[in-house]
């Protein structure tokens, strides 16, 4: 049984601090080249297939802009 996860980032609230990127154990998250309306490179799932929905990114996110989903497959 494997776990598959996905995150949804509130891109307007994200400030691109990268704390989620370094705390992601599966290197799923990266900062986008695009910016939000405040000019921040927001976080996104660069490798969506590797996400396990561990919630590490959301736990350390200072702006609480990450929602995590997880399923067993």
């Amino acid at each position, binding site marked *: 049984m494997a776990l598959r996860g996905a995150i949804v980032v509130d891109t307007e609230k994200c400030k691109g601090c990268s704390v989620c990127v370094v*705390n992601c154990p599966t290197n799923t998250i990266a900062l986008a080249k695009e910016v939000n309306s405040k000019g921040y490179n927001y976080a996104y799932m660069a490798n969506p297939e590797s996400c396990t929905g561990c919630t590490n990114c959301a736990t*350390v*996110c*200072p702006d*609480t802009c990450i929602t995590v*989903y*997880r399923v067993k497959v």
Partner: protein
Amino acid sequence: MDIKDIIKPENKVYSKSPVLLDNVMHYCPGCSHGTVHKLIAEVIEEMGIQEKTIGISPVGCSVFAYNYVDIDWQQAAHGRAPALATATKRLFPDKYVFTYQGDGDLASIGTAEIMHACNRGENIVVIFINNAIYGMTGGQMAPTTLMGMKTATSPNGRREDIHGKPLKITELIAQLEGTCYVTRQSVQSVASARKTKRAIRKAFENSALKKGTSFVEVVSSCNSGWKLSPVKANEWMVENMFPNYPLGDLKDI
């Protein structure tokens, strides 16, 4: 499996606590304040005490904490949050009262208030954010600034002969008989954030048990004040702050 099949309400495992308001925080990217606010909101949600909690916000960056956590708040004069918390707790003994203070507020101008509130053993919770600098006013030296650390008011680094040594206020407070729980935590990693959340929860529970003052120091980063990126600031904190401010419980009765 397609991402759209995973992102469904029934599969949600983590989302923003309803105790946290939707306002975008004014803190700099990567600031520890945001993480600590979130942990406090989650503890309040889990304990079901949103209607019974009163926070006292300080002077400093976190002066606007009342914009982010959906509970009752008061805002104290610089350093006087423990005095205001004392009055609030005595008037409303059934409420959970906590102060949220930075190191400039708590360890400098507010030293008298925090010492005496802790010595009296008021049944309040103190959340102390120690980032070794005055963040809000532009990165001046604080009592907790490390030796050799460059700030706006110590451009050549802190020197013992001029500025004295960093004030370890949490160690001082642990010696006071009024305190029941004194701990030092951090929030730069997942493990540390979860430990901090447990510490905050324990502090609130102590408040209900009338055991005395609970004091939770959170060693934090101020990446703007330290002139580092958020990730580099967290690394610098682990390398330099933790040897001076070692993590763990100092007192747990």
